[in-house]
């Protein structure tokens, strides 16, 4: 079985910061905005190198989203960064009208998504943002799994003409995807070839899915594991092809089961190849304070939860 090596734990937000710094050097149209969270979003290197291309808006996210929309009118490619909660729920109408409906080339860059921001608790742990963003016509929704993938995604979305929601997180997690990867928006990444069960994971749950697949392998179960970094547009063909082979699926995400990746997969399969599905996701609940590991355990978002979901869904085939 193929092994994926953690080359050293790193936070996905640092991958974003590194990508933004590189874009600053390579694409003169890229500008950045932040709502008083420069350190958290790892934007300082970009600011140091291009102070004139950075807009500190203060604690005023609505104004930031509108300004980002306006900057596109002068041909700029704005990267607007804040925590996922403040980048979506707080400013939904601004994104909807000034960015999505207006077709503006704004990159909404959201750190500290999901429960893994940890101790700050549920006020900051948004578990609804994928749903909010994927419902907006024309919005591309990406949730990256590690440092390298986040950096590659950051570079890729600058080349994409249209609004993008890029979701990443706070904690240091395994960095296991290739450093030199080419990030293709809307293209699933196959991690393991398997016959018995499909596991489709996004974000921090991808590493957990790899661990789960290895444990399943020890029990004689082969899992087809797919890393879905782009939730919209979804690589439907990759999902259909896999489930046609395995006949059942587990989806895994750090998000509410309502509105997340799992529902997008369920819709795709319902239309094309209905199959039993288990959802590893939060169950319509808010989070709480705790360490990321404790929260993953309590809310059933780790490798063990994926393993058990796979065993359940296999019985439903």
């Amino acid at each position: 079985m193929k092994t994926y090596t953690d080359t050293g734990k790193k936070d996905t937000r640092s991958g974003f910061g590194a990508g933004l710094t590189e874009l600053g050097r390579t694409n003169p149209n890229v500008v950045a905005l932040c709502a008083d969270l420069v350190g958290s979003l790892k934007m300082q290197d970009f600011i140091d190198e291009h102070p004139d291309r950075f807009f500190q808006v203060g604690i005023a996210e609505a104004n930031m989203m509108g300004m980002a929309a306006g900057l596109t009118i002068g041909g700029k490619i704005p990267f607007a960064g804040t925590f996922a909660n403040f980048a979506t729920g707080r400013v939904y109408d601004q994104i909807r009208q000034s960015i999505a409906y207006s077709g503006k080339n704004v990159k909404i860059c959201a750190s500290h998504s999901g429960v893994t921001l940890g101790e700050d608790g549920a006020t900051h742990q948004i578990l609804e943002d994928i749903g909010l963003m994927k419902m907006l016509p024309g919005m591309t929704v990406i949730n990256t799994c590690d440092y390298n993938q986040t950096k590659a995604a950051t570079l890729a979305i600058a080349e994409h003409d249209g609004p993008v929601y890029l979701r990443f997180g706070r904690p240091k997690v395994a960095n296991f995807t290739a450093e030199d990867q080419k990030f293709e928006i809307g293209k699933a990444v196959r991690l393991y070839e398997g016959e018995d069960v499909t596991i489709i994971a996004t974000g921090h749950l991808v590493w957990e899915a790899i661990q789960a697949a290895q444990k399943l392998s020890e029990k004689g179960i082969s899992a087809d594991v797919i890393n879905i970094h782009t939730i919209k547009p979804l690589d439907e063909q990759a999902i259909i092809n896999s489930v046609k082979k395995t006949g059942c699926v587990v989806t895994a995400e750090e998000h509410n089961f309502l509105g997340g990746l799992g529902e997008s997969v369920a819709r795709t399969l319902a239309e094309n190849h209905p199959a039993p599905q288990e959802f590893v996701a939060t169950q319509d609940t808010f989070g709480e304070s705790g360490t990321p590991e404790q929260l993953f355990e309590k809310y059933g978002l780790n490798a063990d939860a994926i393993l058990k979901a796979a065993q359940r869904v296999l019985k439903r085939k």
Partner: protein
Amino acid sequence: MEIKELEDFATQVRRDILRQVHKVNSGHPGGSLGCTEFFTALYQGGIMEHKPEFNMDGKDEDLFFLSNGHISPVFYSVLARSGYFPVEELNTFRLIDSRLQGHPTTHEGLPGIRVASGSLGQGMSVALGAAQAKKLNKDKHLVYTLHGDGELQEGQNWEAIMYAAGNKVDNLIATVDLNGQQIDGSTETVLPMGNIKAKFEAFGWEVMEIEDGNDMQQVLDGLKQAKSLTGKGKPVCVLMTTVMGNGVDFMMHTHAWHGKAPNDEQLEKALEQNPETLGDY
């Protein structure tokens, strides 16, 4: 254009507003009629340097953003009669498959519109972004906006107002239409906003006033003065007092015609007060 020509233009725009709204029995005539002189001055009075061939990026021209998007009838009429799209297209206002949506949008590709508006309070932020992009692009042209007075109740405006002064966005002229009316009544009864001039000044803006925003000469002079105040380290606010429903006696001084269309009889009466000048579409 001479003042008389501009006034004639405005009269035709008033007819366009009334006829658009009457045809589909919906839309917002009150604020549109109140801001007719403002739009005419901006687009026809030599205030803005603008290009009707329309390029979304708006490089090397002045830009205008309508934040209170519900007064789309006046915007559409002035854009059409300024060459952005065929005047006959005003016939499609609010109809299915039209580029002239109830509230302005880029979505159907209508020339002259650079952002959707309708959900209130968002236009100044967008204008700030466009103004900052102009500075980055070393483009000396200006960015203009229009806001309703009631619209200032939306909190996002004050985020933008704070940002603009704090960051010396001095290539922006934001005009507030002080007609004192909103859907549920006068702004005084719905939510008193206190001294708007003092508020803008306290935030660090250069504020000037147009006492009668329905007097073409005053509007022209006021906007010219506003232009002369740009580039001096402060954003410029123009507080422009207008009469909602201006030009139609029975629509004036009331919020009743904020979002209500005239019936056949009322239209006839309103059009009599605004005789055809440039020719109806």
